[in-house]
């Protein structure tokens, strides 16, 4: 296993110093990255010492090192999971052949597109979260935000490495463009819709890290199966880091729920106005935020039928989630899959060739995974003896992409008229009023061990540190 040479600018386990050209290319990209970080990274955080987890190598001992780091000095670097000897392609039409160590000419354009799209999401979320530190509900949460931010930064590095190393000049240009597009920028926005939405408050952030970073997990998991070995190894390692982001989301929402339930029990009420007056986020608002983030995120998987998805799979570029654990022929030629469509105002299922439905397959895997977490959130209410349960809305609710785009659907899966939609959408999706109420709670709370009134403390600290540990030290 490679160990990291700290004397180099760019820590890596890919023998960067043995490839002068690449090293120079990345070293010239690096100042732009730092400039990007300074310009649109976490606001006002440059001098903070943050208790971060840093990867220094990819073995279990090396990738989770904890200590105080200034984020600008975080060891952004290039880490690939160790190569598997003689790895073979295990799905698609090239099944059984040797995995590719170089990019095959005929797949170059597609691979580049996949990598650029993945890469584009990473800096985007840092940009979206830029101002959140100013309203952090605790030091602990602030640290978690920063951890998410630096790891997104490293994931960008991972993709940039692939672009530089395997895509020549085009790759270098794409790598530059990654720092030029900007989330929400009208003229030069990020590639995917969800990454141009604002993350205005911490509830949005928790929902985002729960739902949207989970999309990241599924996309990375599908890429980790790729026949293009460097991509597979890169994304596999990214997955280990991604876990922390989902943790922030899952536990964040759970803590908000816990605090709300506590106040509901103290005041003996479920009256939304009384609860808001008491400074906690009422459960119906939680449900509306959930509806929004869930529906926006499942759009990220793309159209339910896609010939690109079929090509990506058959040519071995992108597999399914846990491809290796599935017991079918891994070619999928004669199989079919059910997707939803609307006929005469009614939803119905139809069979389509499985290969064309792979986006939907991945989306369904995702849905199952995110549902399981929602069930765990419901345990919070159950334990507190409160008769309210969150649920994910119907797959067709509030969709903008694919066959269901624009279909008017209630969260429980009933087609509704435009009129009903208009009159009830404020019940289903966060209103301006909801958002400004949530925003009104967002006040910085940074004394060690103190938490804003709308969120409960976590069960345990990071890396076994106590909850009131000094997770961020300000100069």
């Amino acid at each position, binding site marked *: 296993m490679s160990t990291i040479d700290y004397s180099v600018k760019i820590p890596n386990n890919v023998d960067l110093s043995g490839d002068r050209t690449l090293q120079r290319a990345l070293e010239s990209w690096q100042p732009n990255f730092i400039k990007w970080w300074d310009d649109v990274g976490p606001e006002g955080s440059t001098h903070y010492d943050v208790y971060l987890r840093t990867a220094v190598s990819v073995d279990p001992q090396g990738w989770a090192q904890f200590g105080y780091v200034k984020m600008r000095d975080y060891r952004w670097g290039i880490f690939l999971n160790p190569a598997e000897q003689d790895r073979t392609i295990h799905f698609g039409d090239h099944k059984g052949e040797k995995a590719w160590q170089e990019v095959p000419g005929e797949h170059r354009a597609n691979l580049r597109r996949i990598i650029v799209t993945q890469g584009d999401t990473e800096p985007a979320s840092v940009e979206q979260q830029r101002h959140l530190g100013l309203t952090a509900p605790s030091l602990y949460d602030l640290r978690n935000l920063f951890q998410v931010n630096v790891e997104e930064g490293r994931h960008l590095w991972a993709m940039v490495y692939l672009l530089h190393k395997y895509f020549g000049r085009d790759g270098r240009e794409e790598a530059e463009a990654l720092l030029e597009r900007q989330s929400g920028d009208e003229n030069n926005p990020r590639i995917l819709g969800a990454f141009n939405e604002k993350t205005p408050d911490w509830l949005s952030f928790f929902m985002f890290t729960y739902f949207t970073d989970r999309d990241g997990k599924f996309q990375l998991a599908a890429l980790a199966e790729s026949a293009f070995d460097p991509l597979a190894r890169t994304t596999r390692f990214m997955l280990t880091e991604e876990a922390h982001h989902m*943790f922030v989301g899952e536990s964040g929402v759970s803590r908000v729920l816990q605090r709300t339930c506590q106040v509901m029990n103290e005041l003996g009420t479920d009256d939304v106005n009384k609860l808001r007056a008491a400074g906690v986020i009422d459960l119906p608002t939680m449900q509306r935020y959930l509806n929004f983030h869930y529906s926006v995120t499942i759009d990220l998987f793309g159209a339910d039928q896609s010939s690109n998805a079929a090509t990506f799979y058959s040519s071995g570029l992108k597999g399914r989630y846990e491809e290796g654990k599935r017991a079918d022929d891994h070619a999928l030629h004669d199989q079919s899959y059910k997707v939803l469509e609307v006929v005469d105002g009614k939803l119905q299922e139809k069979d389509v060739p499985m290969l064309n439905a792979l986006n939907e397959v991945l989306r369904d895997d995702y849905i199952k995974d995110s549902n399981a977490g929602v069930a765990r959130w419901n345990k919070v209410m159950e334990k507190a003896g409160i008769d309210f349960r969150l649920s994910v809305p119907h797959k067709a609710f509030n969709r903008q992409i694919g066959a269901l785009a624009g279909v008017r659907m209630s969260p429980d899966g009933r087609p509704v008229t435009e009129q009903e939609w208009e009159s009830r959408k404020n019940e289903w999706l966060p209103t301006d009023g909801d958002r400004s109420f949530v925003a009104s709670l967002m006040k910085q709370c940074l004394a060690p061990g103190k938490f804003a009134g709308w969120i409960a403390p976590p069960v345990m600290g990071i890396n076994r540190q106590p909850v009131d540990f000094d997770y961020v030290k300000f100069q």
Partner: protein
Amino acid sequence: MTTTTLIANGILNQHLIDPEICIRCNTCEATCPIDAITHDDTNYVVMADKCNGCMDCISPCPTGAIDNWRKVPAAEPYPIDAQYGWDELPPALSAEQLAAAASDVQDLSQAQAVIAAAAESTGSGTGSSTSTRASASSASSVEQSVQESFRAASFGATVPPWSAAHAYTNLHGPKNPVTATVVGNINCTEAGFDNETHHIVLDFGSMPFPVLEGQSVGIIPPGTDATGRPHVARQYSIASARNGERPGYNNAALTVKRVTADHEGRPVRGVASNYLCDLKVGDTVQVIGPFGHSFLMPNHPRSHIVMICTGTGSAPMRAMTEWRRRLRKSGKFDGGKLMLFFGARTPQELPYFGPLQSLPKDFIDNNFAFSRVPGQPRRYVQDAMRERAADLAALLRDENTHIFVCGLKSMEEGVVLALRDVIVQAGMDWDGVAARLKQQGRLHLETY
């Protein structure tokens, strides 16, 4: 990361995942080198028959859910199917339940669950020898060699910390030893290694045998030596807290390393240590003591304790840590810090390694040093001390800090030199600091 011992005397320390905290992120499953982790749609679980306690999965887990352990009879681990159905971890089995299931482990199972710091040897060691020697006819060669000792030994205090509790010594001499009953004997290092170390619990019944952390007892092995005379007693540090290994009972624990080679490495069967390690629950032992009146822990709530030990030198450290742990549970000692430097040749040889690692970080600051891990540079306690020089120096500036060193004789010089370096580098005056440490009973050396 190193391994943790999973099975001792029929008790399995079963590795479990807390379903209430786990977010099902798959990191642990992806990390485990031997595929001991799996999942269904609800839970991530560890297969008891596969997990070897390598601890690789511990630090990558983003939630801490992975770091859960439960004592169960080795023959009855929680099966995978049961774990899939859990909403939360089952309550820990009581000592009685475990004892009932696993014949011979009663107090011991509890002992292991209750964590360990090191035990310091009795006040008989380096500095405070006279009374001990008088009491124990075991004025053994070991003790004499300690007397010759290193220059380093002259820095050790002969007085206890001002806030130490009063110690009883020499209540029972070799002429009137106490008969104690073995109520537990487990291997507290990884089984199958040459340097097996046992955690042995002795019950004194209704005989008075009050001990403090840092004291030691003498054990008289049965039989006679080569010259036909009864064996002399060997000393062993108390490894349990003052109110007993099992609180409220008249018992105490020892940490005994099985000696299988002499100091030069020639094979030899140490008389007392092998006798002790082979004892069965219910056997009786002749005990003398207690010994030691200066290697005693400070008791005031702001006192910090720096513990530096190797091997069975951990016995007094375990005792002090455990007492602090119990006090802390009752809300005392919030300001007092514990910092431990613990050396061994390999993680497998480290007594109490697993339990020690599961103590909260804000309670004890653990630093391990291993000198014989294949493929890794040798690291000794003094290396670890130098690495933590900044934090050590901060503690040394504080008059509430007490330092205890215990273990093999050969560690003493290196440790004292490292202390000196830390002090000098921090811009303090070594002679002055060393003199105060000694006069105020704040630096204690106990090596054998």
